[in-house]
C-alpha cells in the first residue's frame, strides 16, 4: 500500500464515520403525539394553522411571542407558542412546519417555516 492510499482511506473513513454519526443526533419529522412522548428532544411537526382560532400577537406586550393553534397531520391540535416575531404572510399559509418541543399541553417552537400556496393558480379567469 502506498502512503496516499493509507492516509486517504483513513481520512475518508474518519470523516464519513463522523458525519454519519451525527445522523444519530438529528431531529425528526413527527406528530404531536410523538413529541408528547419525549419532551426532551426537538421535533419538526408539519401541520395546518387552525384559522378559526385566530392568532395572538401583541408586540406591545412581547414582540417575540406569537401564539396560534395548529393541527398536525393526524388531525391533533395543540397550541403553539412561537418565540419569535409573527412570520410574514402567516395568514396566507397553506402549511406550517414548527420546530421545538412539547411542554405540557403547549408546543414551544423556536422556528417556523410557512409555506404559502403555489403562485400558479391564483386569479384564474372563471366564467
Amino acid at each position, binding site marked *: 500500500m*502506498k*502512503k*496516499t492510499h493509507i*492516509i*486517504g482511506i483513513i*481520512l*475518508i473513513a474518519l*470523516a*464519513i464515520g463522523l*458525519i454519519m454519526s*451525527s*445522523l*444519530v*443526533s*438529528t*431531529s*425528526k*419529522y*413527527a406528530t404531536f403525539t410523538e413529541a408528547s412522548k419525549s419532551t426532551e428532544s*426537538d*421535533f*419538526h411537526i*408539519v401541520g395546518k394553522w387552525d384559522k378559526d382560532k*385566530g392568532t395572538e*400577537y*401583541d*408586540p*406591545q*406586550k*412581547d*414582540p*417575540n*411571542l406569537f401564539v396560534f393553534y395548529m393541527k398536525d397531520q393526524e388531525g391533533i391540535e395543540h397550541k403553539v407558542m412561537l*418565540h*419569535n*416575531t*409573527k412570520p*410574514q*404572510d402567516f395568514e*396566507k399559509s397553506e402549511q406550517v*412546519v414548527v*420546530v*421545538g418541543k412539547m*411542554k405540557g399541553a403547549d408546543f*414551544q417552537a*423556536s*422556528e417556523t*417555516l410557512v*409555506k*404559502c400556496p*403555489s*403562485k*400558479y*393558480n*391564483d*386569479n*384564474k*379567469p*372563471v*366564467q
Partner: protein
Amino acid sequence: MTIHYIGEHSWAGFLGNIFLVLSFTAAILSSAAYFITSSKPLEELSWKRIGRIAFRIHSISVAGIMGVLFLMLYNHYFEYQYIWQHSNLEMPMKYIFSCFWEGQEGSFLLWTFWHVVLGNILIRYSKEWEAPVMTVFSFVQVFLASMLLGIYVGNLHIGSNPFLLVREMPENLGLPWLTHANYLELPYFKDGRGLNPLLQNYWMTIHPPTLFLGFASTLVPFAYAIAGLWKGKLDSWQTQALPWTFFGIMILGTGILMGGAWAYEALTFGGFWAWDPVENASLVPWLCFVGAGHVMLVNKNRKISLFTTFFLTIITFILVLYSTFLTRSGILGNTSVHAFTDLGMSGQLMLYMLFFVWMSVTLLLLNRRLKIAYTSISFLLLCLGIMTGIKTAFVFTFGLLTLVLLIIGYRRYFPKEEKEEELWTREFWMFIGSLVLAIASFQVILYTSFPVLNKIIQVDFIHSFIQGIHGKLVQWFNFKGLANFASGNLAPEKNAIAFYNKWQSLFAAVVAFLVGFGQFLRYKNTPFKPFIRNLLLAFVLAGILSGIISYGLPRNNPLQFVLNSFLCFSSLFAIFANIDYWRKIGKGKLGKSGSSIAHIGFGLILLGALVSNAKKEIISRNIRGDLRTIDKELSNSSNILLSKGDTLPMGDYYVTYLGRRKGEGEDKRNLYFDVEYLKKQETGKYRHEFTLSPLVQRNERMGNVFEPSTHHFIHRDIYTHLATADLDPSIGSDNGEYTTPVEKTAARHDTIYTSNSMLILDSLTTRFDRQRYRLPDSILAVQASFRALDENGKIVLVRPVFTIRNNESKPIEDTVPSLGLRLNFFKVDPANGKISLYVSEQKTNKKDFIVMEALIFPWINILWFGCLVMISGTILAMRERIRKLKGKADDK
C-alpha cells in the same frame, strides 16, 4: 369547431417554437456529426464541417428563442403564460432580465445560452480536441434543449415550453372562457401576475447569469474528461481543461458570493450565508471543482491522482445536475424557503442525471466486460423501474451498483504509478487538500439531501431492511439515534446554521492550514529543514494575531470556540504564508503570483466570515414582555418594539424611530421606516450619526417583502431590518377613520388587548336599563359589560348590547370616545358562554410602531475584500495557464 381568437400575437409563439425545434434538431445533428468525425481514424473534414454548421445553427436558434422571449416580455404579451406569470405593466423595465430568468424555462435557457457561448469558443480554440469535446457538448445541449420542448410522447411530458399560451395550459382546458373569441378582453389578461418582489433587486440581474455561467463552465472540463476517457488519452486532456477549470472556479465562486451579497442586502435572515438548501446546492459543486482543479495541477507534475481527477471533474458536473434536480423538483418543499415550484420535470431531470452518471462511469471502467455488465444491469434496472413504478428503489440499487463497480474498476483496471511517493511533497498534500474539500462537500450534500434520503428509505423493502438492521443495532449497542434514519423521517437540524458552521469550520480550518504550508513544498521532494524555516515567520505571526483575535471570540459553546480559534489561526497562517511565498519565491511578480493571491483571498474570506459571524452582535435587546411567561431556554429577545418618537439604547447607540414614508416614482410600492441612530454626547445631548431606512415592498398578490438597511463602516456594518409593522401607510395621520374591525372572542373575566387599552369582560346580563336603548321587554337582549383600562390605569366602562329580533341578531354598538374604541357584540355561544365581538379603533389610536432587529457585523469588509482578492488571483492563475498552453503549442 375552431375558434379564431382575436388579438393574440400568435406569430411570436410560432417563431419561438420554430427556434425551439431547430435548436433541438441542430444539437442532435451536431452531436452525431462530431461523433462520426471523432470515430474516424483520420479526421474527416466534411463531417466536422457539418458538426460546426449544425452547432452554429443551434447557437443562432438559442439566440432566437431568447430574442423572441425578450420581445414578448418587452411588449407585454400577457396571453402567453410565461409573460403573464413573470411580468406585469407596473414593473420597471430594468427588471426585465430578472423576469426572463425567474421561471424554470428562462433559467434553462440562460444555462443553454452559456453552453452555446463556451461551445463556440471551443470550436475556435480546441484544435485536435474539437471533435470529441464538441460531441459531448452538443450531446448535453440535446438534453437541455429537450427541457424546453414541451411535447408529449404518449403520456410522457418532455420539457416545459416557454411559448405556451395561457389558454393552452393543461389546467385551463375545457374552461368556458375558452369559447370566447375575444377572451383577451377579460380583465385577467390586461396585466400579468408580476415578478416576485424578492427578485426586484439589482443583484438579481447579475447574480443568476454569473452563477449559470459558472454552472455552464463545469461542462468544459467534464467534456474534456469524457473525451480523454473515450479516446484513451487519460492524461493529456488535463492541460487543455486546466485554464477552463480555473475560469469556472472563478466565475462560479463569484456567482455564489453574489448570491451571498444579495441575501445580505435584500433578505432579512441577518447574514450573508444561511446554509439554505439552495445555497448549498451551488456551493457543493464549487468545492468539488476547486478540488478537481488542484488535482489536475498535481497530475501535471506527477501522475499520482489521475483517478481522483476524473472522479472530481465528473462529479462536479453531475452535482450541477443534481443541484438543478434538488432546487427544481420541489422535493425540498419542507426544508427551504426558496425551493422552486415543480413543473413536473423532476422525473426527467433525474433520468438525465442518471444517464450522465451511467455514461461517465461506463467510460471510467476501462474494461470491456465490466462496461457491458454495468450497462446491461443499468438498462435492466431502468426497465424494471419504469414497469413497476417503484423508481426510488431502483435508483438506490443503481447507485450501489455504480459505487461497487467503480471500486472494482479502479482497483483492477485503472493505471497507477507504482513508485512510493515522498511524504513532504506538494503533490501529496495538495491531494490531501482536495480530498478534504470533497469530504466537506459530502457533508453538505448529505444533510441537504435529507428529503431525498427520506424518500428512498420510505420505499417498502429498503425500509424494512434498514429497520431490521436498526433492530439488531439496538439489540447490540443500544443505538437509538438511528431510528430517525430508519423511519425515513430525517428532519434538518434545528439550528442549521450553527450545525453547518461547526462542521464546515473544521474542514475550512484544515484546508486553510494546508493552503498555508503547501506552497512552500516542492514537487517530488522537499528538504525538510529549509521548509520549516520558511514557514516559521508566518506561523509565529499567525499564532500571535490569532491569539489576540480568539481572545475576543464568544466562549459560550466550547467546541465552537476551539474550532473558531483553529480556523482563525489557519486562515491567518494561510494569508501570511502566501504573502511570504509571493515575496520570497514569486519575487512579487504578477505573472507567477496568481495562486498566492488567490490563496490570500481565500484566507481573507474565511477570516472575514469567521470574525463577522462569531462576533456578530445583536444590539436590539428586548426588555418588554412578561418575564414569568417567557421560557428561559426559548426566550428570544432579539427583536425590539420601537414606537414613533421613542429613543432606546442599542449597543453604543441610541435609536429613534422617526416614522414612515411612502416611496415615490418607481419605488411607490415601497414603504420606508426611518430609524435614526444617535450618540449621546458628554453634554447629554444626542448627536445624529446616520439614518437607516429598512423598507417593505408592498405586494398584495405575492406577499410583502421586508428589506433590511445597512450602514457600512470600514470596520463594521450596522444592519437593521423590520420583523413586523402595520403596513397601513396612513397610520399616525389624523382623520378620525376607524380601522377594519377585528373579531375577538371572550368568556367572563377574559382580557382583550387593543393598541392602547385592556378590555376585561366583567359580566353578561339580560337585566339592565332597557329604557336607555328603547328596547321592549319582548326582545331578547344581552348586555356585555367591559372594564376598559388605559395605559395609566384609568377605568372606563363599555357596554355593547346584543339583541335578537325576528330571529335576526341586531347588535347595538358602544364607543369610548376617549380611547377611540368601538365595540360591536354580535354573537353569544350558549354552549361555552363565550361571546364574539368586533373591535375597531380609530386610526389615530394606533400608535405608529415597528418591531425591528439591529445587528452589528464587525469586519465584514474583510470578507468582501477577500472575495475581490481571490477573484483577481484566480484570473491571474488562469491567464498563466493559458500562456503556458499557448507556449506549448508554439513549441510544437
